[in-house]
Each structure stands twice: as structure tokens, then as C-alpha cells.
């Protein structure tokens, strides 16, 4: 198995005037193998999203290295960074907000294809196919984000993310805003896509039961550090740290 993503000693310190520096992520290292579903759990403020924002280069690192497919992407910019996004795409928590409210879903999905050189007509046809792949009718391409439900919009967001055939999909609380029955459908879709396209997932989530159901391996974050790592069953049945034990005991 090959390593798709490797984070080495990632640290993020937020500096603001008149305040003490705040280290949100403190020396975090981990890797994701090809075809793996890696979960990161932790409570609010534990640094999960900061880790993701650094990996996706939405936030600069304070120190540390990010490697995607063996290539150092920590400091990539502009055109080089654009190449990186061919391999790595994201799905966010609130689908409706991650689409431009004044453009149709189809435009949003086709945008990445057009950016990478596909003709507009061709891209729009592909967008319809992608929607169908994600369980929506291709007519949804002509709808605006506010005209569809949260679950449908999240399907469109997944269609957009897989449009340029990335290897790695980063899902930051991608199912947390959805009803449980819809959540189940989305996870089934992700599993289907994984088998069909050999995808790798980095799945950020605060719902421990969900991570146990979906992921192959899990990292537990607390106060910016990884405090535990293992298969979900291992971590949940035999937590090694006091914090993880408390976290798991709190699940109702």
C-alpha cells in the first residue's frame, strides 16, 4: 500500500497582537494510505478543522511538512497549488454555503472541469453524469443551491469534489448537518464511490459511533495533539488515555 498523504510535525500557532499566542495544533504527524478511510475525532476546539485547513492549504502552517503522493506541498502557491487540487478535494459541513448562491449547481460542478481545460459544453454534460453518479437526476444541474434540500446539496458537493477524479477526498463534518436517514444514504454513496474509483478518505467527525461504522482507522485529537490512534474498535473498547475513556463514556 502506498501513502497518499503524510503530515509531519504539523504545528499551527495563531499570533494576534495584545494576546498570548495560541497553539491550535501542536506537532501532529500521521499518514493516510491509499484506499484507506481515516477518521479524526475530537471535541470542538481540539484542532481537527485546523489540521484539515493546513492540509488543504487554506491555512499556512507554522511549521511542519505536508506530503501528497510523496511530493512536498507545504509551501506550494498559484499554478503549482492548482495541480495539487487535482489530487485532493474537499467536502464541507454546510453544502448550501459552499456553493455560490447566485449560480446553478451544474455551474459549480463544471467549474473545476473548465478550470482544468475542459470545454464548457462537455463539462456541463459531465456535470449531469456526475450528479447521476451521486444519486441525483441530471436536471438538478439547473437548480440553485437554495432550491434543493441539505442532503441533495451535499450530494452535489460530492459530485463537484470527485469531478476531476482526485485520489484523496477530505470530508470535514460532511454529514454532521444532515438528518440521520440522509446521513446514512450519504455514507452509502461514499462507500460506493470508494469501491468504484478507489478513493481515499480523510473523514473529520465528532460523532464517534459514526466513525466506528465508517472508518478503518481513527485518530483522537485533544487540545491540538493526537492522543490516540488505532482501529475504531481498538480505541473504543480499550482506550489508552484518560481523555479518550471519558469521551467514549459520554456517548449516550
Amino acid at each position, binding site marked *: 500500500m502506498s501513502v497518499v498523504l503524510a503530515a509531519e510535525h504539523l504545528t499551527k500557532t495563531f499570533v494576534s497582537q495584545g494576546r498570548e499566542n495560541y497553539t491550535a495544533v501542536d506537532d501532529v504527524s500521521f499518514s493516510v494510505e491509499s484506499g484507506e478511510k481515516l477518521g479524526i475525532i475530537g471535541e470542538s476546539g481540539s484542532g481537527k478543522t485546523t489540521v484539515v485547513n493546513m492540509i488543504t492549504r487554506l491555512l499556512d502552517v507554522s511549521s511542519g511538512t505536508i506530503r501528497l503522493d510523496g511530493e512536498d506541498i507545504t509551501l506550494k502557491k498559484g499554478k503549482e497549488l492548482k495541480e495539487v487540487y487535482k489530487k485532493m478535494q474537499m467536502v464541507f459541513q454546510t453544502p448550501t454555503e459552499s456553493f455560490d448562491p447566485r449560480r446553478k449547481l451544474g455551474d459549480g460542478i463544471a467549474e473545476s472541469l473548465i478550470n482544468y481545460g475542459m470545454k464548457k459544453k462537455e463539462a456541463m454534460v459531465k456535470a449531469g453524469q456526475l450528479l447521476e453518479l451521486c444519486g441525483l437526476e441530471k436536471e438538478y444541474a439547473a437548480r440553485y443551491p437554495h432550491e434543493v434540500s441539505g442532503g441533495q446539496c451535499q450530494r452535489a458537493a460530492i459530485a463537484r469534489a470527485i469531478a476531476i477524479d482526485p485520489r484523496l477526498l477530505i470530508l470535514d463534518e460532511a454529514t454532521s448537518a444532515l438528518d*440521520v436517514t440522509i446521513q446514512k444514504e450519504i455514507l452509502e454513496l461514499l462507500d460506493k464511490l470508494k469501491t468504484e474509483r478507489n478513493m481515499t478518505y480523510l473523514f473529520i467527525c465528532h460523532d464517534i*459511533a459514526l466513525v466506528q461504522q465508517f472508518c478503518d482507522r481513527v485518530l483522537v485529537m485533544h487540545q491540538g495533539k493526537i492522543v490516540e490512534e488505532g482501529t475504531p474498535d481498538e480505541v*473504543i*473498547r480499550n482506550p489508552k488515555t484518560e481523555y479518550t475513556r*471519558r*469521551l467514549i463514556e459520554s456517548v*449516550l
Partner: protein
Amino acid sequence: MTEVIRYEHVDISYKGKRVVHDVSFSVEKGEILGIVGESGSGKSTLIKAAMGLLGKDGLVTRGDIWYKGMDLPDLKPREMRKLCGTELGMIFQTAGSSFCPIRTVRAQLYEFMTEHKKIKADVFENQAEELLEKFGFEDPKRVLDSYPFELSGGMQQRVGIAAAMLLNPKILMADEPTSALDVTVQKQVVEEMLMVRETFGTSIVLVTHNMGVIRAMADKVLILHEGEIMEYGVTEEVFEHPESVYTKKLLAAVPKLRR
């Protein structure tokens, strides 16, 4: 057991569109009723109707909500205002944002009290501190001195519950009280609401989409789907032996932790 509140064949509409249809249930003294449903099922609308919070677009079009011989939807705003707080308490999903951001917790709790009865500042201070202590706050004075945004999300929620209990209402309506919280804090808030029932004998109507919270708290559960009751009964029975197709589908979709 005495019945505290009773919904009889309630229909509720928003802008002429019916969102709740023919809902009947009753809550007894000290009972916790959980109302479960997905987004858009009308669960929040049900408790808003009792509190007179439907806004100008919402209307109870049929049926009655009985409380102490009064039909709540028929009350005049002035009569309703008397009941809100003293008889019917309410907790929202983000209690923090239902506080005023530029005034201290003390000033706001004092205002809640004086709206309904005359009370001297020092008597209030003692009462408030005593109540916050019951809720497990180590330093009640510091909480009272704080502005809402100085408290963590969990603290805000706990202060919100304490604030609702200040006037000792007979019923507490809780709209997703734990949904914005981390699991460890959620557990604490659940325990506190159970403590409220134990200490004050308050009835609680708990609206949530979280089955775990319902299982941990509710005596009875009402499953709502597209404004209609799918199932209504003792929590354990409904969870162990669901009868309606929808309930089965809903319960199957909830991820369960395998320990």
C-alpha cells in the same frame, strides 16, 4: 398523577401551509416527553405553539392546547406573557444567543425575576447563587459577573437552564438543548435536566433529533414525521419494538457505538 398540559387534535399552519396535523398528547407532572423527528417534521413548531412563539405567519388552525383549564392559543398576548417564565419555561438550542450580549448574567437574571414579581436585589442575589450552586457551578458569583460571551458554549447552556428554572415553572420546553454541545458537555446537561425534574418535579418536553438523549432522559417518546405522529408510547417499548415503518427506518439509521 396529574396532567399538566394536553394537546388535542392540534393542526398548525405557516402561511396557510399545514405543517402539523392532528397531534394529540399529554404530559403529566414530573414526566419527560421526548419529541423526535428530522428537520422539517414540525417538532419545534409544536412547542412554539404552546409558548405563543409561532410569529405572525404561524397559526394554530385546529385543536386546543390545554394548560390549567386555559386554551393557550386563544390567550391574549398579555395573559400569555404572565404564563411565560413562571408557568412555562423555555430553553433554546443556543441559550447563549438568547441572552443580551452587552449585559452581565446577573443583570439579565434580575430582570427575568422583576418582570414577574417584586424582589429585593440582595434576596435575588442569594436565590440566584443558591440555584447556580445546585446546578454544579463552583463559583456562582463569577458566573453572575460574566457577560454571556465570556462563558463557554456548555456553560451558556447550563446558565440558560438555570435561568429558566429561576421562576420555577411547571413545564420546561426544551428545543434541541444539547445539539450544539460536545458529547462530554452534553452528558452534563442531560444530567442537569434530570436533576431539575428530581428536585423541582418539573415536567419536561424535550424536542431533539438525538436518539441517545431521548433514550437517556425521556419516559415517553413521540415520533413525528412530516407533521404527523408516527408512534407515541413508552420510550423503551418504542425503541425496542418499533411498529411504524418510519420509526424502524429512523432507528436503523442511527449509528450506534459498539463497545
